[in-house]
């Protein structure tokens, strides 16, 4: 029997809620798949869309970004900014031919260790089904093009002040 595919997923978590939620999962000895490797940022608002692209470029099979629930952000509204970027990122990833299941934005609070486990498990299962991430053939050229249009996209979204969800 061949070894099952074990995806490598980069988790970018905000310090105040989601990172603390992941800590709580550990403190509560909640077991979950080991595939998510966590990078800490102070706020999900810090997550530059290029971090997500970088992770894929480095061979990540998925990227999970997680912040505080809406209205709970330690910095008032950083998570709304990330929320806005999510819309843009999803479009970009789609254009790059990356399956939507490989990128997810979630809200996990400091006391939701169970929820963190749930999101990780769901994501790992979904990515396992997709199999390893295959970089699109002309990934670099496409990516560069998107990077160029990224500035304009950010500006547009910032001017709109967020998403209407």
């Amino acid at each position, binding site marked *: 029997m061949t070894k099952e595919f074990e995806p490598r997923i980069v988790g970018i978590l905000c310090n105040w809620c989601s*990172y603390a939620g992941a800590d709580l999962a550990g403190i509560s000895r909640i077991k979950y798949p080991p595939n998510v490797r966590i990078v800490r940022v102070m706020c999900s608002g810090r997550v530059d869309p290029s971090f997500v692209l970088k992770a894929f470029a480095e061979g990540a099979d998925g990227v999970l970004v997680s912040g505080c629930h809406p209205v709970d952000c330690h910095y008032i509204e950083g998570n709304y900014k990330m929320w806005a970027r999510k819309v843009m990122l999803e479009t970009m990833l789609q254009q790059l031919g990356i399956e939507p299941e490989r990128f997810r934005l979630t809200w996990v609070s400091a006391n939701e260790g169970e929820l963190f486990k749930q999101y990780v498990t769901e994501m790992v299962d979904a990515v396992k089904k997709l199999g390893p991430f295959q970089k699109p053939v002309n990934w670099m050229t496409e990516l560069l093009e998107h990077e160029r249009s990224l500035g304009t996209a950010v500006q547009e979204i910032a001017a709109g002040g967020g998403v209407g969800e």
Partner: protein
Amino acid sequence: MSEEIKIGVYVCHCGSNIADKVDCAAVAEFASKLPNVTVARDFQYMCADPGQELIRKDIKEQGINRVVVASCSPRMHEPTFRKVCESVGLNGYFFEMANIREHVSWCTEDREAATEKAKALVAAAVARVPLQEPLYERYADMNDRVLVIGGGIAGIEAALKVSGGNKEVVIVEKEPSIGGTMAKLDKTFPTLDCSACILTPKMVECAQRDNVKLYTYSEVEKVDGYVGNFTVTIRKKARSVDLDKCTGCGLCITKCPTKDIPHEWEENLTTRTAIFTPFPQAVPNKPVIDRENCRYFTTGKCGICAKVCPTDAVDFEQEDELVTEDFGAIIVATGFELFDPSVGPQWGFGKFDNVITSLQFERMVNASGPTKGKVLLKNGEEPKSIAILHCIGSRDENYHEYCSRFCCTAALKLAHLAKEKTNGDVYSFYIDMRTFGKGYEEFYNRIMSEGIHFIRGKGTEVVERKGQLLVRTEDTLLGKYREVPVDMVVLMAACQPGQDTEKLAQTLAIQRSADGFFLEAHPKLEPLKTATDGIFLCGACQGPKDIPDSVAQGAGAASEALSLISAGKVKISPIVARCDEDKCGGCMICINLCPYTAISYDEEKKVAVVNEAKCKGCGTCSGSCPTGAMTNTNFTDEQIMTQIEGVLAV
């Protein structure tokens, strides 16, 4: 930087906490082969003295200039290890932590997978740490006034202690008087001393001390700023009575023609007038007009109170007033509210006249209460039998999973008072008797000898048959289903978060736990702090608490606040945004995104400028900067990207 990078990597076993699931020696061995790593060790306890000494020694003897510790969460020991570095002259930000306990050993089943994941996290830290820059803590001025939100016993205690430390304190209380729930109680367990006798002197002291300012009938509307420098907007609701002019003579109350308004403070057991003071010992002991029910406001006619007032204090034109005050620290002491048992029809509350809540019974047995201390049925007769039902809404997965802690002992107190007042049959329906505090078990033993009937079984249902109330239970000691006929039922309703908890959490940017109460920074070691610096918690707003615990926490929170403001300066994290003027295109996106208005535009240079005193380092600006000019100290694009590469290197 021309200096050669020499990284020391330290993999902690944390006893067996990490070592059970992670092959620490293998991780250290793996680390030793990574670029720039000079030493890599694994050790029993890195946070203990010998572990710290190991780092110090390597810095001194081997010239280690970057440190990576793989152990617990940085939320736990990052400051510890930064200090270790600093103690031997290495900047604390040349340190990076890999969380292989909370994020690896404690949450992973398989040892091999855990070791693999630990390696990835260590690789990321090792990749990142050479890019880290020395950073220095900054200091800002500290305002030394303290705001206490909530004037119950916890808030009062906190305020008096802060005031005792010679600092100014402001209490904001939403009700017309301070006192909170304790003011409604008759006796207090386990000593049975009268609640008012021990509380009212403290209330009066709050009013009398020069450095305590009271805002009653007021609410916190907005909080700006940060630790040491909060600016708080307080809404003083229109009381319709000028507190400066009013002498509290009470003439207006006796003359008010609207007398049939349910008296909330008396738990609706009696009625009150439209202009009223909630209770005789109120502080301030000055009335307020309930505009919704006042004839002057509803019909435009009346105004009797204004006519009889000898000092001209009634002011129908008064409007809500917004005042702003500056503080260095904030103590949240907003208490709790009682669970409304009418949401569970099985208890018959609101349906049967003689099913009442614990607080209603408390008012009844109080000599200054609506029945002048008599226990009376709705028909005015004295009950011959009373059932006291524990755990109404607590320890019940349909309502609140938690135990409300104080109700068992409070129920014993009420059982004692019921027996004393009526000499009838008193039944106590309990699941477990939780008398945890000092002297509480002894109190239980005493009450048991008073002839109370204890039935071990939850009162699951209250029904009426031919005018007779019946309490249904499964008596778990007899192993029998029982129906106990009684005249009156007292429901020990759960302690739950107040209705405005959610709103206040948002105003203050503090968190709540799953049960809805405010969340402390650490359940054991930081019970009075919140995750937001400078904001502290005390009393039942953090979770069910009795009086001794609330008082202890009030004093504790005061000590937290005093120790913070006494330092005179606030330490500000050096993690802030920074703008590279050469890269900045002056698009101003960041200026609009910043929630703290910390970024402005330099017209001359046409670039964004960060005000570091206002910046909190969230990095939202950096995350949105299209040119990469805006970045965050200790979280630069390069550092994060390299860390991402690192976690994927294994």
